[in-house]
């Protein structure tokens, strides 16, 4: 319990620091947002009016405080580029990216775990050799290229979907999911390859250990040894890796959303950066950062629950 509280406090502090850093990065460092938006030709009065309106005057800390308040209360600030609150701009994008991330994660688990286990039972078997050969290649394909290939093969040739023709879930849930499958696969395949590599390496490592020999000496067959003994010993590195993977999935989705024209956080981030619309960019980064940090915290907790040696 004490450990949990300690870690929770650390979590809160980290979140605060990250949000402060993001604030500094986006609101303070870039310099005068008024000139950036209105241009150098604008009159001093207009510039001043803009600054007043956006609350850009005054010392840093109160501005941060106000931003924090905005963030949690509702509006999350106003966009520089569009006449909307950041909140409105975020809209349903969080949900869309959330679904994409969740689908990708599920796919990674569904692909990586069976492939790893089935191919590592016999380290010198054919399945194992095929996986060893194919895996690095799949890992080397960037998600956005894979997305383009998928668009080409499944979209243009097989006509299973229309690339770029995003279907929102308010139109049709089935259509939405059916469309999202493809970006999810583009993200999931390379990540599964990485997970497979990790899991197989972990399994092969464990198979060298003494307790495996003991299990065989009692008459256990290969399957029993793998599933009842080795698997639980590989869970620990697996869990930490999967937590990191979610963060990676989120990062990949930024690019993949662009490929498929999915209106998620990623596309919003990219466009807001291009437009130098800092409040929006900042909000997106903070949201993503929060998710990543919380996930790490959770995986740390799970890790401690699973490994009895650490519990002591």
């Amino acid at each position, binding site marked *: 319990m004490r450990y949990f509280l300690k870690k929770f406090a650390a979590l809160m502090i980290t979140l605060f620091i990250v949000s402060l850093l993001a604030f500094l990065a986006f609101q303070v460092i870039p310099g005068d947002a008024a000139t950036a938006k209105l241009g150098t030709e604008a009159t001093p009065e207009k510039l001043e009016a803009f600054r007043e309106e956006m609350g850009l005057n005054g010392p840093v800390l109160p501005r941060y405080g106000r931003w924090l308040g905005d963030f949690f209360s509702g509006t999350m600030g106003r966009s520089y580029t569009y006449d909307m609150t950041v909140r409105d701009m975020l809209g349903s994008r969080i949900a869309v990216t959330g679904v994409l991330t969740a689908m990708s994660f599920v796919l990674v688990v569904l692909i990586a775990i069976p492939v790893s286990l089935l191919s590592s039972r016999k380290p010198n078997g054919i399945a194992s050799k095929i996986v060893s050969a194919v895996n690095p290649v799949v890992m080397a394909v960037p998600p956005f290229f894979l997305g383009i290939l998928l668009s080409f093969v499944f979209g243009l040739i097989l006509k299973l979907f229309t690339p770029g023709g995003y279907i929102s879930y308010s139109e049709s849930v089935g259509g939405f999911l059916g469309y999202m499958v493809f970006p999810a696969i583009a993200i999931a395949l390379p990540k599964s390859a990485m997970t497979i590599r990790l899991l197989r390496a972990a399994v092969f490592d464990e198979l060298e250990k*003494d307790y495996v*020999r*003991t*299990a*065989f000496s*009692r*008459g*256990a067959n290969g399957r029993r040894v793998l599933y009842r003994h080795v698997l639980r*010993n590989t869970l620990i590195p697996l869990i930490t890796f999967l937590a990191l993977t979610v963060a990676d999935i989120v990062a990949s989705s930024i690019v993949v959303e662009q490929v498929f024209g999915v209106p998620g956080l990623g596309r919003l981030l990219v466009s807001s950066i291009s437009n130098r619309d800092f409040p929006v960019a900042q909000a997106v980064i903070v949201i993503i950062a929060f998710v990543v940090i919380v996930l790490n915290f959770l995986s740390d907790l799970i890790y401690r629950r699973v490994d009895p*040696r650490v519990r002591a």
Partner: protein
Amino acid sequence: MLDIQNLTITLNMSGDPVVRDVSLTVNDGEALGLVGESGSGKTVTALTIAGLLPRRAMTATGEILLDGADLLTCSRDALRRHQGRDIGMIFQEPMTSLNPLMRVGKQVEESIRIHTNATKAQRRERALSAMAAAELSDPEAIYDKYPHELSGGMRQRVMIAAAIITDPGLLIADEPTTALDVTIQAQIIALLKRINKEKGISILFISHDLSVVRRLCTRVAVMQDGRIVEQGDVEDTFSNPKDPYTQKLIASIPQRRKRNE
């Protein structure tokens, strides 16, 4: 119980045979010591008897007869049936030889789980009685513990319990006391002796430590460079070693010196 005839083993990786024309016998209810230095081939012999050396990684000729059944030529399934049920094995390092993430009781039960259809309750009962036979002081409490929560001596007792739970005919012990403190060593040796006498389980005791072998075993075989150079009754061999290598081994045992009163 165990009859090995002309066993020669060559590992695929190396060139020369590591075990050459070895013949030895462990009679029913007997404790045979297999002595030699590292590289003598004694561990390879033990692992081959226990079926733990993958068949495709070696070439073996000769016979290993366990109560008549040849372990070298029987099917893989048949071999697995012998493992754990008719042959039990304990190893040198009890910490790494136990699964760190599995409770000790479950590990003791494992052979029963594999070879019989006993229910959960039956398994637990048999595990507890095996642990008691291995002289663990509070089997019920220890049953739920993890290996890292136990001392070295207790872990070795757990391994022994796990090995004898099926009442095997043969127990192979590969240097089980080398990694233990001297006082614990003595206890484990005494335990093994008791198991040998009371349960009639034959023991093949592998060690490089002659003095330990002397305390436990009735017969001894000495291995050098893959060959058996001397085999016979323990006391006879100690008092009258015929082979020069055996003589050297005996001479190198540190003698206890009497204190001057």
